[in-house]
Each structure stands twice: as C-alpha cells, then as structure tokens.
C-alpha cells in the first residue's frame, strides 16, 4: 500500500515537472543568474546584478518574440558543484535559455562545462580567468566585462612603463590568482621588467602582514596584488599599516569600485587599476549609474553594468534570430556589434571573448574627490585589441579549426 502511494505520487510529481518544463519552453524566455549572493564577492555583483538584469528586461519591454522574459536567481556560495548542479537543474527542468554567471573563476569553469553539455548559452561576467575563452572555452560561452589578460595589459604595463621594473607578487592560492600572476608576469617581462618572487597566500587569510614583510624583504619596487575582494582590501590595509607602501608601489591587479568604496580613499589613493567600465565616464554611463543608484543606493561595479549590457545583447540576438535556438542565437551574438552604455563597438571573438575598450584608472586622493563615488581619474583608454590581444586565443579548440 505504502509502495503504491509512493509510486502514484512519484508519477504525479514527475508528470508535474515535465509539464512545467514544456510550459516554460512554450511561452516564456528564461534567463538564470548564478552568482555569489552571500559570500565575499556579494557586493561585486550579487543583488545589484539581479537589479541590473531586471532593469535590462524591463527596458527591453518584458517580452521577446511574444514570450514573457523570466529571471531566475541562485546563490552558488562559491562552490563549483553547487553552481554546476543548479545550471543543470535549470537547463533540464526550468527551460533555461541563457545563464548569467557571476563571480568566481572556479565556479564559472565548472558551469561552462555544463553549458557545453546542455547547449545553453552561458555569459560569464564576474570570473576573471582568461582560460574561460582559452583552454576551457566552449561554443556556448561568452566572457564579458574583463579578464586576467586585460587586467595585466592595463595595470602591469602602465606601472612598468612608469619605472616599476621589479615585481613581487602576493597571489591568492587558486585558479584565479595564479592566472592573474602569470598574465601580469608575462606583461612585466615583455616590457623589460622582472618578477623577482611571489608568495602564494591561502584564500581568506586572516592576516597578511607576514606575507607583506616577505615581499618587502625581496627589495622589489612593485607589490603586485594578485587577489580580490576582502583579501585585496586586507592586504592593502596591512601594507599601509606596516609602511610598506612607502618603499614599494602597490599594484591592484583586480579591484572593483566596491572595494575602493569600502577601503576609503585615504588607504586606496594613488593605486593604478584596470576596469571595463566606470559610472562617471560619460553621459550614458552617468545616466545608468543614476538609475541604478536610485534602486541600490550605490554606484554599479563594472560587472553589474555588464549584467545589464549582456542581458540586452542576448535579448537582441534572440529577437533578430527570431528564435531561442542556442546555436542560432550564438551565431547572431558573434556577428553583431555591441553598442550601449557599457561598450562601444564591442564584439564577440571566435573564442567567445567580448572585446571592448578597457580603462586604466588611478584612484583619486581625498582632496581630488569632489562628490560621492568620485573615485577614479582616467589614465589611459585601451582599445579592445590592446587590452585583450589582436587575435583569438589559440589554446581554445574552437579557434584552431
């Protein structure tokens, strides 16, 4: 009897699921957002990313090809297995048509593999690792906003050209940190500089002073911070406290405006950093910043702006392809230009990388900052080719063919 009841309820349950999936595919377009919503990177995209994607959907009119656009959200908690299984679940059961991938390179690499298996377009925005469009590329991955190559070409080359020839790296001990250090080392060496050492710091270390003293002991001119989020803030804070910033020039290889905001200009002033977008670049960016600020009470990071841009770009591609068929939409995405408040003449390369202008910024001093969130001065605008290289990554199997 018990067994019978179980079988009946299972049958009903499965039938119900199949019903929703079919329904989803029929009359709605489903966009999923899988991001760190509660951990160390929650301020980089998080709730602000959900808001930006919702703004994009509303601006697009709420529907495409006569179907309602639906946004699903999930917290991957910085765990690759959670991100990948959520992706799989949405692809199988919720009829997901496109997934926005938030922070964390490790999680994004895991999700890209699911994207390839399930044939669901995957737009990676928060992850920095350039391998997403290199060895880990897939026909369905698009890498938006920035990557480790662009960060190195921006920040590292600017500092080497300004005389910072010898480098010591403080590196987060996982895929992101090592990719960032490798990219920066290449740029430093190519410009006549030299890396004279590095220390691999476990992610989320509670104290950085010991590693910083090792860096200082090396006698290098530049302290390359190949870390992010709280690790970046805490290491810079300790470098100031120990007076290391007086003898070494710190280089923020990845810093978001949310980090600068939380550190304060007193600590962060003078830092060089590379960003794909800044709210105070021009009238378009300021207009978006103003709308975003009204909802979130803070200016958007480059990734949050990219969430808006990528969502619109995907919906436009669906509209012009006249279908949500993943292969046709990817083809449409790769042949159209991206022109909006985020990018001018951006385009998606064969390996999946979205090439667009990048900006080298210097953090203002408290005296230079005239109004709230007035944090950066533009040092240099890099063309997309200068930032990301002038050809697709050959380590990506899609490019060799």
């Amino acid at each position, binding site marked *: 009897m018990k067994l019978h009841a179980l079988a009946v309820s299972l049958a009903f349950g499965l039938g119900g699921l199949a019903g929703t999936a079919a329904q989803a595919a029929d009359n709605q377009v489903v966009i999923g957002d899988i991001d760190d919503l509660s*951990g160390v990177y929650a301020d980089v995209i998080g709730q602000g990313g959900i808001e930006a994607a919702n703004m994009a959907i509303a601006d697009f009119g709420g529907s495409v090809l006569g179907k309602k656009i639906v946004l699903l959200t999930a917290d991957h908690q910085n765990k690759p297995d959670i991100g990948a299984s959520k992706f799989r679940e949405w692809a199988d059961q919720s009829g997901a048509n496109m997934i926005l991938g938030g922070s964390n390179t490790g999680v994004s690499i895991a999700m890209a593999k699911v994207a390839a298996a399930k044939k669901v377009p995957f737009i990676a925005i928060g992850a920095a690792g350039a391998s997403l469009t290199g060895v880990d590329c897939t026909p369905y991955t698009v890498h938006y906003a920035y990557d480790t190559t662009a960060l190195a070409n921006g920040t590292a080359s600017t500092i080497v050209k300004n005389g910072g020839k010898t480098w010591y790296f403080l590196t987060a001990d996982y895929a992101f940190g090592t990719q960032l250090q490798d990219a920066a080392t290449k740029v430093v060496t190519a410009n006549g500089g030299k890396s004279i050492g590095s220390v691999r710091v476990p992610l989320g*270390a*509670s104290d950085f002073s*010991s590693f910083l003293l090792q860096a200082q002991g090396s006698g290098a001119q530049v302290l390359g911070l190949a870390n992010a989020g*709280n690790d970046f*803030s805490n290491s810079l804070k300790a470098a100031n406290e120990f007076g290391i910033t007086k003898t070494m020039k710190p280089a923020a290889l990845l810093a978001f405006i949310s980090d600068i905001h939380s550190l304060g200009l*007193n600590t962060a002033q003078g830092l060089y950093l590379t960003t794909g977008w800044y709210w105070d670049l021009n009238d378009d960016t300021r207009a978006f910043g103003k709308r975003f600020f009204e909802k979130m009470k803070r200016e958007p990071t480059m990734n949050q702006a990219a969430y808006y841009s990528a969502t619109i770009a995907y919906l436009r591609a669906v509209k012009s392809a006249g279908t949500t068929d993943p292969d046709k939409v990817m083809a449409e995405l790769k042949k159209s230009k991206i022109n909006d408040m985020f990018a001018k003449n951006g385009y998606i390369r064969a390996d999946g990388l979205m090439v667009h202008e990048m900006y080298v910024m210097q953090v203002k001093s408290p005296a230079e900052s005239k109004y709230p969130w007035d944090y950066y001065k533009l040092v240099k605008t890099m063309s997309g080719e200068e930032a990301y290289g002038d050809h697709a990554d050959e380590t990506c199997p899609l490019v060799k063919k």
Partner: protein
Amino acid sequence: MSVFGFPLPVILGQLMLGLVNGSFYALLSLGLAVIFGLLGVVNFAHGAFYMLGAYAAWIALDQFGINYWFALLLAPLVVGVLGVIIERLFLRHLYRLDPLYGLLLTFGIALIAEGLLRYQFGASGQSYPVPAALAGAVNLGFMVLPIYRGWVIAASLAVCFVTWFLIERTRLGATLRAATENARLVQAFGINVPVLVMCTYGGGVALAALAGVLSAPVIQVNPLMGSSLVIVVFAVVVIGGMGSILGTIVSGLALGLIEGFTKVIYPEASNIVVFVIMAIVLIWRPAGLFGKE
C-alpha cells in the same frame, strides 16, 4: 646568524607577527573555553559575536562619533547584554539536552547575525581607522612594528591574565567552578546559579566582542570576519584542552607562533598547520595538552 636558512631578523620579525595573531587566538578562544568549561555549551556563535563587536565599534564611530577607547568598553557591554538575552531566551532551555542542540542553536544565530549585517552594510566591509594615539610604528631593529600591533599583544595578555586570575584564583571563580560541578549543591548554599551561568555566558561573549574591537583597525570589518576565524579558534581550544583556561591561552599564543613560522617556510600550508597539529594532539592526548583525562 641564521635559523633554517633564514636570517635571524626575518625569523624574529615573523615570530613577533605570530605573537600578534596568537594574542587574537588566545583572547577569542578564552571566551570559548570559559563558556564550554562552565556551561558545557559549544558556542558556534563566538565568531559572530567577535564580528558584532567590531561592527559595534564601527557603528559607534561612524554614526555617533564615539572613539576607540569608549568603544573598547561599550562594544563588549552591548554585545555581552545581547549574549545574556540569547542565554535567557533560548540557550538555558538546552542545558539538559545533548550538546548538539546548543551547537545547532548558536550556529543558527551566527548565520542570522551575518545575514542581517550583510543585508544592512554589504559584504565588502568597512574601514576602521587606527586610533591617533596608537598610530605610527617603532623600529625594533629586526623589524618595524606598528604601535597598534604592540598594543594588541599587551591588551590581550592583560585581559587573558585577569580572566585566568578571576576564574582560577578568586572566590567568585571558585563558586563558578563549583556550580558547574554540582549545581544543586551550590544552589543549596544560597547562590543563584542560573544568574551566575547567565553572567558567565555574557562575559564569554563580551570577551569575543572585545577581540572584535581590537581587530577592527587591523582588518576590514565585514560580516564574514568571524566565521573565517572561529574554526581556527575551536582548534585552539581543542588543542589546549576543552575548558582549560590556562591551556587555551598558552596554546593560542603558541599556535600563533607556529603559524607565523609556517608562513615563511611553506606559506601554502599556513591555513592548515593548526589543524594538522590538532590531529596530532588528539591522537597523542585526546583530552588536549592541558585537559584532564
């Protein structure tokens, strides 16, 4: 002169930094050890109270202009009262049950506290400035030590000593220890045991908050600062011997030093060395270094 192939000044510098971190470990694990030793509660919310202490100091400065020195008194008081409320409302109902229930309750409280602060202030944290009187650095010959870090060592050693003295060497401490051995007998002598237990929990929590205020100028004040530290602190308590006050203080300082060494010799292992030591100690002495069998 060199040790393990490293010049002596480098080793001395790293030991000094290890001592600073060890002071934090000692202070944090002290509260944990007091609560476990006297109440038998595995207080998983300890990291959250540490974080709340740091936030209390930051809010006091940012919203009300209350300076660091007042925050050193005020934050432990406010967070301690919060601890007392939690003890009265929830925790006291669990004393007679399996310790697992207390662990689950305090873990839940920690998650709620972290979530609320993240919702209110964001995940990237706030900066708390070093108080003017302790700004700057002194040259010790082998290293340049920020004065504030020196203050952390002095302050936490003093607090550790006072706590140890209070519990192991005074009449109040003797009553407390007696109450945990046999509550009914002590109550028969006319001592209000529930109030004593409540104050003990509040006191242990206040110690965590004090550590939070001390650390606010050193690291970014953020909602997750406690949960990343509390696991190490639990390891310190286990190594020292669950409930042993002196054992906790000594092992906190010693582990800070060992971790400091590891950061020079093999940095990648610096976040696991404490747990390796814990495993070795547990195999060799299951009750911990200073614990009673």
